[in-house]
């Protein structure tokens, strides 16, 4: 999902850059107050970890591979502010040094890949955690679910940016359908991987996991009642279905956006002008097949992303403040 230069209109690039810049500044401050003078080495090495983890090819189906995105994982392991900071650093370095993602696209790439995944993932994690038993298994399950949701949120955020700043005559509902559809599948993979990585960490150093700080040492040791097994089997069954579907289409497709491109090839492009508003990109609104529905989808998605990400930011700031007071 590392969009290159010119993928969205300059206006969207600028607005998202401002949002990302402000949040990054906050993240630097919050991470500093959480980690103290350990901030530089710990955040730096954690960023190297996320970068390395993204290079690991995981088998998906029939030899095709995928990789971890790591936003929600970073948030659960390191807390949302440090997690966001770390993944942002990865995105920035990938753009400047590896030409992976455009320099002028840094605003929306950081927003979608680091901020939305870390805070959206964290808010989801906190919500799901309440429904899970207070055990290691609960942390793993909630983290996995949050990771899956975070990927879909990221795709939804991109679609909404497309609504405002499309650079190509592909309608919003087509992009939204394809982006979110494909990322539901990617999300399942992300959930499984995140769950497994988290459970490996919980098994050896649960004290390092910020998302598990609410557990007492007795609760950490307690055998989880739902257990990893049903959860894993459930994920794997879902993954098998997904794997079969994916393998039908893509032999070597590395990235969701690319899938979107191919999916949109099957989409019917209508020509009536709908959703007309100077705020929205002409492209993204042209050819929308059902304008009322599209507007409803865009609105709902926008509210969902904003609420979850905003909720994540608020609860992250609040818990940081509470820690400072203690």
């Amino acid at each position, binding site marked *: 999902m590392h969009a290159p230069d010119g993928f969205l209109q300059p206006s969207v690039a600028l607005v998202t850059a401002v949002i990302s810049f402000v949040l990054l500044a906050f993240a630097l401050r919050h991470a500093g107050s959480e980690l103290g003078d350990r901030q530089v080495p710990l955040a730096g090495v954690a960023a*190297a970890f996320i970068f390395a983890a993204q290079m690991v090819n995981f*088998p998906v189906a029939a030899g095709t591979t995928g990789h971890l995105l790591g936003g929600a994982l970073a948030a659960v392991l390191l807390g949302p502010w440090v997690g966001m900071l770390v993944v942002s650093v990865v995105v920035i370095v990938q753009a400047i040094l590896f030409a992976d993602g455009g320099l002028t696209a840094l605003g929306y790439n950081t927003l979608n890949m680091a901020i939305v995944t870390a805070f959206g993932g964290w808010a989801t994690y906190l919500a799901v955690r309440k429904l899970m038993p207070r055990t290691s298994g609960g942390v793993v399950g909630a983290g996995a679910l949050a990771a899956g949701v975070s990927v879909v949120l990221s795709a939804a955020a991109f679609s909404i940016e497309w609504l405002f700043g499309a650079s190509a005559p592909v309608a919003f509902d087509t992009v939204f359908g394809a982006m979110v559809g494909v990322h539901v599948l990617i999300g399942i993979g992300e959930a499984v991987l995140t769950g*497994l990585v988290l459970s490996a960490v919980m098994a050896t150093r649960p004290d390092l996991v910020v998302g598990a700080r609410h557990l007492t040492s007795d609760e950490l040791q307690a055998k989880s009642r739902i257990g990893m097994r049903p959860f894993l089997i459930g994920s794997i069954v879902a993954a098998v279905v997904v794997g079969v579907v994916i393998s039908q289409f893509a032999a070597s497709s590395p990235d969701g956006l690319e899938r979107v491109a191919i999916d949109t090839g099957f989409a019917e492009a209508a020509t009536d002008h709908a959703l007309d508003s100077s705020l929205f990109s002409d492209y993204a609104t042209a050819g929308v097949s059902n304008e009322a529905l599209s507007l409803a989808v865009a609105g709902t998605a926008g509210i969902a992303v904003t609420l979850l990400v905003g909720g994540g930011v608020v609860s992250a700031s609040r818990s940081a403040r509470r820690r400072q007071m203690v």
Partner: protein
Amino acid sequence: MSGAHGSTVTRLYVAGDSRIHRISPEVKLVAVFAVVVVGAVTPRTEVVAFSVYVVAALMVVAMSGIGLIKYLRRLTVIVPFILFAFVIPFVGGGEKLNVAGVALSVDGLWAMWNILVKAALGATMSIVLSATTPVTNLLHGLTRLRVPRLLVAIISFMLRYIDVLVEQLGRMRRSMVARGHDPRWLWQVKPIASSAGALFVRSYERGERVHQAMLARGYSGVMPAMTNQRASINEWIAVMVYPAVCFGVLMLAVV
């Protein structure tokens, strides 16, 4: 991004002594960024302007002496988006153009061109930057451009330890392969994911040990300043001619 063996970060730099290599990092960073921004805001119909940008960018690549093959290989980063761009004319709406019996969206063709040329220009600039500037100098450049020292320090530690971690991962993977592990399906993923978890624990512990090594050498939470040379005004002027020409071309084109 292949990896597991060999270094990822230090391989970016292509040793040399070209005029591009010799530019001070802060000047190079600003020039690169300016050229990419000018490219990104240029309306897609300004074909002449883009031609100038592309020719100029290729001249810079040639001057840098990084080699065509190496340049093209790194440019493959944008391939997924090239594929995406090629699909747009087929799915795009609006006026159609009939090419060999296939109806292509005119607007879609423009959109394709827009993404292709801007993505290629942007990637080219990043490639030249990282291929002609040692990582350490790049970090100094960021510091001199007043990027918060904290952020630069985090990036610096990340770059230092990527290769260490990638090697650790490679060792873990080899030991799995040596024991006959050859996963092809998602439900066989557990050993790899567990090794990623183990890698996190090791990274965290590494971070704590590095922190102690820093404290032992007098670290008090502020990274010491270790760069004092600055680029001269003359150098700034000489190098900024490049983005200025691009900007001038843009102005001529739109006005």
